[in-house]
C-alpha cells in the first residue's frame, strides 16, 4: 500500500470495516511510515475534539419549560 491510498482507508480502519487482509496490509504500512502514523493520530485527535462539542449546558429557561411540560404530560390520563 502507498500513503495516498492508506489515508483514504483510515476511517474504515478505525471502524473495523477493513477485511482481514486489508487490515494486515494497512497495519504493516503504518508500522513503517511516520507520515501515515501522524495522519492517523491527527484523525483520532480530530474525532476527540469534535466529541467535546457535546458538552453544552441547557439554558435555564428551556430546562424549566421542559420540566414543566414533563409534569403536565405526567398528569395526563393514560389509556
Amino acid at each position, binding site marked *: 500500500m502507498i500513503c495516498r491510498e492508506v489515508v483514504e482507508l483510515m476511517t474504515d480502519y478505525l471502524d473495523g470495516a477493513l477485511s482481514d487482509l486489508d487490515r494486515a496490509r494497512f497495519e504493516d504500512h503504518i508500522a513503517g511510515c511516520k507520515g501515515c502514523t501522524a495522519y492517523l493520530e491527527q*484523525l483520532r485527535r480530530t474525532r476527540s475534539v469534535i466529541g467535546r462539542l457535546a458538552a453544552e449546558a441547557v439554558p435555564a429557561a428551556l430546562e424549566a419549560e421542559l420540566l414543566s411540560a414533563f409534569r403536565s404530560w405526567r398528569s395526563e390520563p393514560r389509556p
Partner: protein
Amino acid sequence: MSRRPEDSELAALRAGDEAAFQALVQRYHGPLMRVAMGYVRDRSTAEDVVQETWLTCLRSLDRFEGRSSLKTWIFGIALNVARARRRKDSRLLPFASLFKRDDSESSAPTVDPRRFAADGMWRTPPDDWSNVPESHVLSRETLDRVRSAIDRLPARQREVIILRDVAGFDAQAVSTVLAITPENQRVRLHRARAAVRKVLEEYLR
C-alpha cells in the same frame, strides 16, 4: 431480547420520573443543538427545535415500541423536526445557500494530491501533533473553529459526523437513523473528518 441499560431509563420516563427526564435533556442537549444548528440559522431557532423535539418525544412516548434504542428514537425525531423547520424557513433563506457544493458521495481524494510524490508516498507529511498541548487543542477558540467547520459541511456529511462524533452513535445506528447504506455512511464520515482535520491542521500549525 437482552435488556439494554436504556430500558430502565425508558421505564423511569414512563413512570413519570422527572429526574430521569432531566438527565436525558441535559445529556443530549449539546448533540441535539448541533443537529439542529445544521438546519437552522441561529441558536434561538435551534433551541426551538430542541424544545419541539422533547415535546414530540413526550407526546409519542406511549406509542414508542422500543424497536430502536431510546437514543436513536430521540435523534430520529430531532432530525424530522429540524428538517421540517428548515423547509418552513427555506422560503426566507437566500437562494444561493440552497445550492451548496456537495461532494458527499465523491471518491475524490480527501488529502491534497500535491502532498504526495509520484510514487504515492508523502512529499509533505503531516505534523506530529503529540507535542501540541491539550490545552491548545481544547481551547475555546479551537472548538469554535471546529464547530464552524462542521457548520460549513454539506448537510449529508454534517449529519453523519454529528451523529457519530458528537452524539456518539455507532456506524450501524447512524446508517439506520439516516436510512443510508453502511458504505455511504463511511464515505460521508471520512470526508467530513478529513475536512475538519484540515481546518485543525491549518490552525495548529
